[in-house]
C-alpha cells in the first residue's frame, strides 16, 4: 500500500521513526566495501561493509542519531497536536488524543535516550586490553568495548518501543492494537534485560518476559473470544454490538475480563503488578522511567479503548465498575504499603507507580459507575490523561536523577541518596521537587492532577448523597460507595508522603559517603532542570491552564 502525501503527513512522526530504525541498521555499517564486477577487474563501491568510515565507526553515532530522531518525532507530534485528524486504511486513526499520547511517549523516550548516552556511554577511546593491564583495568576496558558494540541494539529497541506505543494509540482495531503493544512490549523486555552482565538485569528481564507473555496470551485469548462473539475486532463495530446487546453475553464478558488481565499487567494493577518492581529495579534507570511513564500510559490507553469506548453503556453502570473499584483500592494500598519499607529507591518508585495506577483506576471506576453526567465523566478522563502527561515530568525526572547516581554505579540503595544535597544541591533540589510532586503537594503539577481526579470522583458521586441530611455522617452513609474511592485516594496519599519525604530527608540530613559532586552530564542535568521547572510551571497559573486546555481538546476527540 502506497501512502498518499496527506497520509504521510498525518503519521510523519512515525515515519521518521521507521526511517530512524532503518538508518540505525544501515549507517553504522557503511564502509568502503567494493564489489568486483564478475568477469571484469572493475570494482564498484557498494558501501555496506568493509572498513568503516571514521564517522560511521564512531560508537556515539547511534545514540546521537536516535536523540535527533526522537527530537524530530517529538517536535512534529507537538506541532500536530492541534491539527491532527484523519484515518489511514481501516486500522489507523489519528486524532488529537493519539497525537497527545505519542507526544508523551516520544517525550519520555527522548529523555531516556539522553540519559542513556551517559548511563551507557560510548567511548571513542575504548581499546582492547593489553597483557600489561591489571585485571580490573582490562575488565573495565572490556565492558567499555561491550557497551560500544551494543549501542545500536539499544537505540533500535528504543525506537521500536516508541513506534509500537504510538501505533497502538492510533489503532482502531483490537488486533492491530495487540500487535503494536507486543512490538513495544517485546522490545521493552529486552531493554529491561539489556545489562545482562549485571546479576539483577537478566533475572528481571526473564521474569518480566515470562509474566508478560502469560498476560499477553491471556489477553489474546480474550480477544479471540470477543471475535467469536462479535465477528469483528473493530472498535466501532464492537461498541455497536455491545450497546445492542440485550443482556450480557458470557462470551463477551469473559473476553473483556481476560483482556483486563493483560492490560492490568501493563498498568501494573494488583495482583498482576508483582513482576513490575523486579523489572524496574533490575533495569537501568532510564528504561525503568520509560516503563513507569510511557508504558503505563500505553496500558491506560488500552483500558480506555476497551472499557470506555467499547463496554461503557449510554445509561447506567458498566459491568466492570465494582470490580475495577476493588482492584483500584487494592492496587493503591498495596503499592503504598509495599513502598513504605522499600530500601531500594528504584523499587520504591516502582511501588509508587503501582499506587498511582491505583488512583487512575479508581477514577476510571468512578466513570464506570454511570452516576455522573457526561461532563463529569469527561472531567475525570481529563484528569487521568493530564496525570499521565505530567507523570513524564516528575516520575521520569526522579528516575533520571537516579540515572545520575547510576552513572557512578549506585542507586540501588537508599543510602546512595544520602547527603545528595551537599554533594549536588541542584540535583537534590530537583529530586525534592519531584518527590513533592509525586506526593501531590501544592502548587506542583502532581497536586493539580490528583485534585482534579478526587474532585471528579466526588462530583460524580456526591449527587447521590441524601440532600436532606444536615450532618456529615448520615450523608456519608447515604452516598454512593463510589464516593469512598476519593477517600481511599486521600488516605493513600497521606500514607505515601511517608516514603516520598524519607527520600528528601536522607538527601538533606544524612551525611554522604563521599563529598564528590556528581558527574556533570551536561544534557542530562539540564533535562532534569527543565523537568523541574515544568513540574512547577504546569502546576499553577497559565502553564496549568495551557496544558489542561490541550488535554481537554485531546480527550474530546478520544
Amino acid at each position, binding site marked *: 500500500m502506497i501512502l498518499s502525501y496527506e497520509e504521510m503527513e498525518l503519521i510523519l512522526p512515525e515515519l521518521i521513526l521507521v526511517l530512524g530504525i532503518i538508518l540505525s541498521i544501515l549507517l553504522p555499517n557503511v564502509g568502503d566495501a567494493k564489489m568486483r564486477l564478475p568477469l571484469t577487474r572493475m570494482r564498484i563501491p557498494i558501501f555496506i561493509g568493509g572498513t568503516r568510515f571514521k564517522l560511521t565507526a564512531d560508537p556515539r553515532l547511534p545514540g546521537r542519531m536516535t536523540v535527533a530522531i526522537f527530537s524530530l518525532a517529538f517536535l512534529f507530534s507537538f506541532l500536530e497536536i492541534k491539527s491532527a485528524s484523519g484515518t489511514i486504511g481501516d486500522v489507523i486513526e489519528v486524532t488529537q488524543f493519539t497525537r497527545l499520547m505519542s507526544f508523551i511517549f516520544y517525550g519520555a523516550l527522548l529523555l531516556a535516550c539522553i540519559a542513556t548516552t551517559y548511563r551507557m556511554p560510548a567511548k571513542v577511546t575504548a581499546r582492547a586490553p593489553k597483557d600489561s593491564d591489571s585485571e580490573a583495568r582490562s575488565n573495565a576496558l572490556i565492558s567499555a568495548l561491550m557497551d560500544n558494540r551494543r549501542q545500536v541494539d539499544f537505540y533500535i529497541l528504543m525506537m521500536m518501543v516508541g513506534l509500537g506505543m504510538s501505533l497502538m494509540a492510533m489503532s482502531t482495531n483490537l488486533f492491530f492494537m495487540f500487535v503494536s503493544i507486543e512490538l513495544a512490549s517485546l522490545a521493552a523486555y529486552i531493554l529491561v534485560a539489556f545489562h545482562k552482565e549485571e546479576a539483577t538485569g537478566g533475572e528481571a528481564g*526473564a*521474569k518480566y518476559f*515470562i*509474566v508478560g507473555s*502469560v*498476560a499477553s496470551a*491471556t489477553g489474546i485469548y480474550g480477544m479471540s473470544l470477543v471475535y467469536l462473539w462479535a465477528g469483528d475486532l473493530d472498535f466501532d463495530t464492537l461498541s455497536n454490538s455491545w450497546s445492542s446487546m440485550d443482556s*450480557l453475553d458470557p462470551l463477551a*464478558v*469473559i473476553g473483556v*475480563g*481476560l483482556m*483486563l*488481565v493483560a492490560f*492490568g*499487567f501493563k498498568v501494573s494493577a*494488583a*495482583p*498482576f503488578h*508483582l*513482576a513490575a*518492581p*523486579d523489572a524496574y529495579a533490575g533495569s537501568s534507570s532510564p528504561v525503568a522511567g520509560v516503563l513507569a511513564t510511557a508504558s503505563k500510559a500505553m496500558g491506560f490507553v488500552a483500558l480506555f479503548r476497551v472499557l470506555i469506548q467499547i463496554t461503557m453503556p449510554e445509561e447506567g453502570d458498566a*459491568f*466492570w465498575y*465494582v*470490580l475495577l473499584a*476493588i482492584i483500584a483500592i487494592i492496587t493503591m494500598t*498495596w503499592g503504598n*504499603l*509495599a*513502598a*513504605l*519499607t522499600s530500601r531500594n529507591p528504584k523499587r520504591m518508585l516502582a511501588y509508587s507507580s503501582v499506587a498511582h495506577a491505583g488512583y487512575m483506576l479508581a477514577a476510571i471506576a468512578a466513570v464506570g459507575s454511570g452516576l455522573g453526567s457526561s*461532563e*463529569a465523566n469527561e*472531567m475525570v478522563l481529563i484528569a487521568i490523561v493530564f496525570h499521565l502527561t505530567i507523570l513524564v515530568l516528575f516520575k521520569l525526572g526522579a528516575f533520571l536523577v537516579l540515572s545520575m547516581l547510576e552513572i557512578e554505579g549506585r542507586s540501588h540503595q537508599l543510602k546512595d541518596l544520602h547527603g545528595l544535597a551537599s554533594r549536588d544541591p541542584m540535583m537534590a533540589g530537583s529530586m525534592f521537587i519531584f518527590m513533592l510532586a509525586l506526593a501531590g503537594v501544592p502548587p506542583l503539577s502532581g497536586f*493539580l492532577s490528583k*485534585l*482534579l481526579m478526587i*474532585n471528579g470522583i*466526588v*462530583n460524580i458521586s*456526591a*449527587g447521590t*448523597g441524601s*440532600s*436532606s441530611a444536615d450532618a456529615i455522617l448520615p450523608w456519608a452513609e447515604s452516598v454512593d460507595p463510589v464516593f469512598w474511592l476519593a477517600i481511599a485516594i486521600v488516605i493513600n496519599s497521606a*500514607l505515601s508522603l*511517608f516514603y516520598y519525604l524519607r527520600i528528601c530527608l536522607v538527601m538533606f540530613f544524612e551525611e554522604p559517603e563521599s563529598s564528590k559532586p556528581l558527574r556533570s552530564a551536561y544534557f542530562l542535568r539540564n533535562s532534569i532542570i527543565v523537568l523541574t521547572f515544568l513540574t512547577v510551571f504546569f502546576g*499553577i*497559573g*497559565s502553564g*496549568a*491552564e495551557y496544558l489542561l486546555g490541550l488535554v481537554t481538546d485531546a480527550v474530546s476527540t478520544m
Partner: protein
Amino acid sequence: MGENKQEWDRLLYIIPFLLVVPYLYLTNENSTDYWWLIIASPFIFFFIIAIVGQIWNKHNFWVNNLKEGGVLGLGALSLSLSTSIWMICDYLSDHGHVETGEPLSWLSFDVLTYGDDSWSIATSGFSGIGFGIYLDSLSIMLLFVATFLCFLICWFAIGYMTTDSINDNSNHRFFAEFVLFSMGMFGMVLADNFLWLFIFWEIMGLCSYLLIGFYYWKPSAAYAAKKAFLTTRVGDVFLMIGLLMLYDIYGSLDFAVVFDHPDTGVGGVAVDSAELQTALLMLFIGAVGKSAQFPLHVWLPDAMEGPTPVSALIHAATMVNAGLYLVARMVPFVDIHHHGVAGMEELGLIVAWIGGITAFMAAAIAFVQNDIKKVLAYSTMSQLAYIFTGLGATLWLFNSGKHHAGALVFGGSLFHLFNHAMAKGMLFMASGSVIHEVHHAHDHLHHHGDDDHDFDPQDMRNMGGLASKLPVTATAMMFGSMSIIGIPLIGGFWSKEVIIAKTWYAYFHGAEELIGPALLLLATAGMTGFYMSRMWFMTFAGEPKNQLVDHVHETTPWIKTPLVILSIITAIGGFGLALYGMVDWLSGEENHLSIHKATFLKQVIYELDHAFLPDDLKLRYVGWTTIFLSFIIGPVMAARIYGGALKEGEKATPVIHWLTSLSGKFGSQNVDEIANSQLADALQNRLYFDDLYEGILARTIIPFSNFTAWFDRTVIDGVIKQIESNSVLGSVQIRKVTTGSARDYILMAAVGALSIFALIWGVN
C-alpha cells in the same frame, strides 16, 4: 584617586538598566503600562544574585567588579527608580487617579457547592485576585521615598558591606535579601488591594527578619531577629483579622470597591460604624506592630543588630512607614464628606494617644542611650509616633466634619513622613559611616598590637571630636539632626509644625481627649532637641575620648555620595516642597505641585507668615513654644552637658567649627547625680518593657507551650507512630507475597483473573 576612579567604573554596569526607561519613553509607551518593571526587576534580581552568588562565590569578577551582587542590585533598583520617576512625572502632569492592572487569573476549576438543598457543580467559584496599581498622591510620594532611598542605601551598602571583613563572602545573601525587601516595599505601596498589600507586607516582614539576623552566628542578632519577627507577628494576626472583617463588610478588598462608598457594604447595606471601627482598630494594631509603636515597640531597638544599611533602609526609612501608610489609607472610611462612616471619633483618639505616648516615651529613653544607632532607633519611634498622632488627629477631624483642618494635618503628617524618611535614612547612613570608620581605625590599631576585645564601635563614649576627621559625615548628620529637631526652615520643621499645631487645633475645637497627645508632643519637641543634639555633640564635638579617633578618616566614595545627595534634600527639600504646596497636594486638596502666589517671593513670604504668625492666636503660642523648646532649650541643655570645642589645631568646615566652638561656650554641667538616679536606670532598661513582656510570656505562653509540646510528643506523635508501625508491619507482610519467583507471580495473576470472574458473576 586612581582607586576611586576604578570604583566609579563599577557604575558602568548599571547603565543598561538606566537606558530602559528612556527607550520606552522615546517609543511613546505609556508609563502606567510598565508599572510591573518596578516590582519585577528587584524580584528577578533577587534570584539572580542569590543563585549566581552561590555559584560564583569568591570569584574575582564577582567580588571586585560586581561587588558580590551589590552592583546588580543597584542596577535593578535603578530600573525601579527610573520607572517610578517616569510614572511620577506622568502622574504630576496628568494628575488624578490611576487604577490599572489585569487580574492575575488563579487556578479555576469546577467546585462542589451546596445550595438550594442539593449538591451541584459550580464552575469556578473563585475567580482570582487581581493585582493592579493604585496611584494617588500618597502612594506616589511613598513610591518615590521607597525607590529613591532603596537605591541610595543600596549604593551606600556596597561601600559599607563589601569592605567589612566580617561578612566573609556572604554579601550576595545580603544583597539578594535587600532587593527582595525592596520588591516587597514597592509592591505594598503600589498594590490596589488590601490583600496584596498584606502579602507584600509579609514579604517585608520576612526580609526584615532575615536581614536583622544577617550575622546569625551572633546570638544577639539571632535573638533580635526572632524578637522582631514575633512581635510584628502579633500585630499581623490582628491585621489579618481586620482584613477579614473588612472583607465581611464590603465583600471585596479592592481599594476601588471599598473606597467608592465606604458607607455601603456588600449588597447595599449601610455599614455599622461600630463594626467598621473594630475592623479598622485591628488594622491599626497591625500598623502599631510594623511601625514599632507602644506597646509593640520592643523589637525596633534590638533590630539595630542588623547591618547598618538595613537599619537605614528597613527600620528607619521604608518598612516602618508601612504602618503609617496603612493608617493613612483609613482616611476614606472616616471622611464623612465623601461617604465616610460617621461615629468613629474614638479611632482617631486611640491612634493619637498611642502616638503621643510613644513619642514621649521613646524620646525619654533616647536620653540615656550611648549606642549611636540605638539613639537613632528611639528617635525613629518617636518621630513615627508624631506622624501617628497627626494621623489620629486627621481621623478625628475628618470624622467630626472639620474637613479643611483634617486635610491640612493629613498632608502635614504625610509630609513629615517624607521628611523623616529622608533625614532618618541619611542619619543612619551617616552613623554607619561613623561606625565603619571607627571600626576600621580600631582594626588598624588592633593590628599594631593594641588588643581590646570589648571595644564597641557604636558606643558614642568612644568618639568625640570626630568633626574634623569626618567632615562630610558631620555635615550630613548636622542637617539630619536639624531636620529631626525641627530647627526653623530646615526640613522637618515644616511638617512637624503642622502636626503639633493641628493637634492643638483639634483640642481647641472639641476633642478634649486630645489634650494628652497634644501636650506630650509639645514636650517631645523639646526632648528631641536635647537627644539629637546630645548625639551630635557626643560624636563630633569636644575633645576625642579615645586615642583611635586620630586614625579615623573617610575612605570610600560609595559611602560619601548618598550622604551628600540626602544632605541637600534634607536641608532645602522641606522648605522647597512646602513652597510648592506639598501639604495640600499630599492631602489630595490640590492636583498639582505648584506655586500658588503670583511670584516666588510672595509665596516665600506667605509660607513664612503662615508658619510663624498663624492667624489663630492660640496656635501662634503653640508654634512659638515649640520653636522655643526645640530650638533653644533642648540644644542648649545638650551643649551644656556634652558640648565642647574641638581640640586646638583641628580643622573642620567653617559651619561645623563655629557650631562646636559655640557649643563649648554654654559652660558645662555635671549630670552624674541625675545619671545615677533611678529614673535614668529605668530608662536605661527601656522602662522595663522587655522584662515585663518576658515575665508575662514566661508565666503564660511558655507553660502552655510546654503542655502542647508534651501533648504533641506523646499523644499526636504516639498515634502517628502507632499508625506508622502498623503500616510498616503491613508493608512487611505484603512484601512477603513478592517472593521474587516468576511462578508465584503467575500464580497470583491467575488468582487475580479468577477473582475477576468471580466478581463479575457476583455483581451481575
